[in-house]
């Protein structure tokens, strides 16, 4: 009797593990950033042409030097979720642009600046966007795909990283947290 109970317990345990493996779905891509709470990396990248008049040929970003929260959004012109979130980012820029900076970084898109410019024009994006042609900056930020959005405090430390397209609710909530 005791032996039978042991066999049943073992079978149930292994069966449970098997079911867990089957039902947990695809691997989780939303990996927490290693930069959370730390100052984010600096960079100096060329700007897309619509922003040259306002910001100059390159955008030199130094964490904490801007004096207000910064939202960095990594995007690529081939990425479908980036198309979904582009109007959301533009809307947030119109609402919060005087209190926080939104900065786009076109990445993992080598040699496709012209198509990137088409993307910017298609969605009428007025917040600045730079070109990370060799994807170095995306590696510096530990990017696992596009789009990813980094919410950075005014002191230059990372408060939150979001993988996948942002929603209006998320932008609103995270920007309010940064501004409080």
């Amino acid at each position, binding site marked *: 009797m005791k032996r039978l109970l042991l066999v049943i317990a073992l079978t149930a345990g292994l069966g449970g593990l098997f079911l867990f493996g089957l039902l947990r779905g*695809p*691997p989780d891509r939303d*990996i*927490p*950033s*290693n*930069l959370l709470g730390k100052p984010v990396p600096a960079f100096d990248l060329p700007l897309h042409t619509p922003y040259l008049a306002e910001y100059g040929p390159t955008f030199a970003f130094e964490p904490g030097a801007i004096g207000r929260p910064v939202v960095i959004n990594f995007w690529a012109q081939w990425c479908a979720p980036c198309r979904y979130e582009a109007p959301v980012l533009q809307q947030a820029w119109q609402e919060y642009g005087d209190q926080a900076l939104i900065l786009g970084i076109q990445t*993992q*898109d*080598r040699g496709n600046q012209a198509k990137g410019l088409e993307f910017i024009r298609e969605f009428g994006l007025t917040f600045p966007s730079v070109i990370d042609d*060799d*994807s*170095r900056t*995306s*590696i*510096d*930020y*530990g*990017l*696992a*795909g596009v789009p990813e959005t980094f919410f950075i405090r005014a002191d230059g430390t990372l408060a939150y990283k979001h993988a996948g397209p942002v929603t209006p609710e998320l932008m609103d909530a995270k920007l309010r947290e940064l501004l409080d």
Partner: protein
Amino acid sequence: MTPIPTAPTPAGRARPAPRWFGPLRWGALLLALLLGGLAWPTPAAAQAEVVTEARVYEIAKLLRCPVCVSESVAASSSPISVQMREQIQEMLVQGRSEREILGYFQERYGDWILLEPPKRGLHLLVWLLPAVAALVGLALLLTLVRRWTRAGREVPAVDEADLQRLREALREQE
């Protein structure tokens, strides 16, 4: 032989080529060949390049492609993996060690980027559990084998009445 025409001098006479021009020209040619030879990749330089490339792939095999599922940076052709391999190559050329290169990516992505979990903290479980499981399995197997062999050696107890019946049956057969 037709003489090579030369530009007339202002006085209208042909100027002969200076005697030193010949040796200088040969010297320049030799120097150009020598410099060209130096610029040409030597077998040793080519070998070093091959070694570096092989090392790039060795290190890239230890890193997870950030945008793929269960694929290493060495096996992936995604733009970010290509860029990561380029970065590994640059770092090797700069003389950085494998440990330093892995540390560079680990600092940015966390332990997740390593295909082989580091041998510390909770990750130790991944390394120790298989060994523990193998030892437990071996101990279980040994116990079972000993029990089975002992069972084979033991003489089963026989009732005296049964033995008596057997003896009688044998006697009757004789």
